[in-house]
């Protein structure tokens, strides 16, 4: 059987048999502790600077941002963004409780369709779980409340993110995720899919020259909700 053949070949190469129990135990302890390695200083800054760094990095990676005071201001920010960019006012939206709690009727022109994205959707809006200042990266775990297709199929992707969910570096985002999630199917914490998204889709395959909007969204817009007093400058 190939499995035994591969494991056997590895052990022959390493000139040993299967790892002794005490060494296996040590490796299991390492995985259980999942120690961090060197964390760059750029992500280890005070809260207001983390938020500023996140916004800076999103824009550096060709995303756009808008900052609003509360969830109630989200419909206005979304409507303004769509109008300013000549985009349709109907969009697919993640069926996430926080987005559902918003009174969208204050902007009657907006037409929302909760659910996963369809191939014909031009605009998709989803809810950001967390974000990483270090690189301007959004953490978008897939679930019934955050369908993965919303990150991919639309021409324009809009992500609503609370400022309190911005962390300095990747490992801190994993800490949040490990603490807050449990997957009943596997007994672990990983859902089927987690996407880390840094800017809109792009390709440099044609003459090594960057073009936005290869297969995924051409535009990525982050609506940041300032729910964190400590993050305000």
């Amino acid at each position, binding site marked *: 059987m190939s499995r035994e053949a591969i494991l056997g070949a*590895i052990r022959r190469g390493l000139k040993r048999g299967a790892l002794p129990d005490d060494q296996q135990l040590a490796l299991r302890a390492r995985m259980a502790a999942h120690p961090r390695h060197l964390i760059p200083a750029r992500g280890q800054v005070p809260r207001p600077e983390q938020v500023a760094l996140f916004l800076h990095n999103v824009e550096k990676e060709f995303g756009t941002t808008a900052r609003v005071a509360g969830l109630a201001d989200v419909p206005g920010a979304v409507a303004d963004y769509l109008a300013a960019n000549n985009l349709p006012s109907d969009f697919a939206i993640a069926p996430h409780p926080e987005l559902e709690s918003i009174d969208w009727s204050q902007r009657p022109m907006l037409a929302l369709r909760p659910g996963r994205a369809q191939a014909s959707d031009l605009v998709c809006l989803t809810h950001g779980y967390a974000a990483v200042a270090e690189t301007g990266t959004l953490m978008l775990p897939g679930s019934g409340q955050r369908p993965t297709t919303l990150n991919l199929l639309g021409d324009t992707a809009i992500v609503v993110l609370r400022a309190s969910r911005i962390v300095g570096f990747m490992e801190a985002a994993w800490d949040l995720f490990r603490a807050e999630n449990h997957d009943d199917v596997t007994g672990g914490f990983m859902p089927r899919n987690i996407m880390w998204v840094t800017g809109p889709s792009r*390709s440099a395959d044609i003459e090594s020259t960057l073009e936005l909007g290869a297969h995924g969204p051409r535009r990525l817009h982050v609506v940041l909700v300032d729910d964190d007093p400590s993050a305000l400058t």
Partner: protein
Amino acid sequence: MLATSPAFKANVKGALADVGLQKALAFTRPSFAGRRAAAVAALPEFEQLRDVGRDIKDHVLGNLDFYLETWAANVAKTGGTVHWCSTADDARAAVLAICQRVGAKTVTKGKSMISEELGINEHLEKFGIEPVETDLGEYILQLRKEPPSHIIAPAFHLNREDWEESFRASHTDLPEDRVFGERRDILTEARKKLREKFLAADVGITGANFLIAETGSSVIVTNEGNGDLTQTLPRVHIVLASIEKVVPTLEDACALLRLLARSATGQDMSVYTTFSTGVVRPGDLDGPEEYHVVLVDNGRTGMIGTEFQEMLRCIRCAACMNHCPVYFTVGGHSYGWVYPGPMGSVLTPSLIGVDKAGHLPNASTFCGKCESVCPVKIPLPKLMRHWREREFERHLTPQTMRTNLALWAWFARRPAAYRLATRVAAWTLGLLGRKRGRFHSLPFAGGWTDGRDLPAPEGETFFARYARQQRETQS
């Protein structure tokens, strides 16, 4: 993939005469190195992170059996299936069996060098299943029936005219008089064409940049989003991964991710870094019902415990080829198999045999740039030298070269004879070249003088001058 590595010398002649290729190489070279340099300069900890990356990979390789077993057990918990494949044949058969069982007609594919190594596309086509490459670069190469020339920028050797020509020849349902005014027009047409394929595919095949032991996840890193559409929309997701891709934890992956994009494209982070863990969960609104990982050895276990083990640290960033003077002279296709540049010159002989790929480790100036940019500090020149030694030991080196090496070795071991011979040579060449100061051509050195002149020696050897100057300073 059939290797043309034995014909390396002929491949190089063709590449040097290829005007389009030379134009693309000259155009791309400064930007590849420049982007990495800018990203590295912006992260003061980058050099320390290279040590971290090396240590993580060494730790994994020393315990590879344990981490693979742990990872596979965790894949099983997520409803996924691991197919352990010792050979390329095993892996092709495993992929085909899955596709046939689910009655697949078309299969979309994210970019995967393992797929190139296995020749998955040819195999599926043979059985009437249509594979569709969805990475923009891989897509045009599939239309043109060409292999990739680079591991992360597979079609950078093509110019805009080539794209336009291939699209007109292949997309015959579109109006003939359409205009490709900008690169964007090419991209838009590909996006539209491939969107149909994404939606129609029965199976999606991707590679993997990492496998995470603690969670049983596979990770892909892309910029276009094609890999994500490939693994999200079809009913079945197949991951192709080689055994050395496993890392223990998400934190280990984070450390390597900080190195990968910066070394590859000069980005701080690629656009999409996606962690896939098993099959669709209850309540999910999208995602595949089947998740398979075809785990491939294909010669890698043979490198463990040998002087080539360090090559298995490679994270496929392409920094080595992006900084290689040989690669940017001859292009990727000259190397004749899946992996070009310095990493290919070490890996290819390991995987297909030094008898077929012996030219590759010889095609190096040993300038050391590859090792100095490698994010996991693989000593590539040293490993190429090991291949040269093995080639020599197995009597694969050409007779003239062996004779000359033997001749040189005889002199090198006899200092008096060496000094006498070099003195005679320097004196003779100095006398002959006194007038012009250089030689346009020399007997037995045509390969050198074809490309440049040899400066004439001044008549004195280094040894002689050094001894003379020592005497002069002492007196």
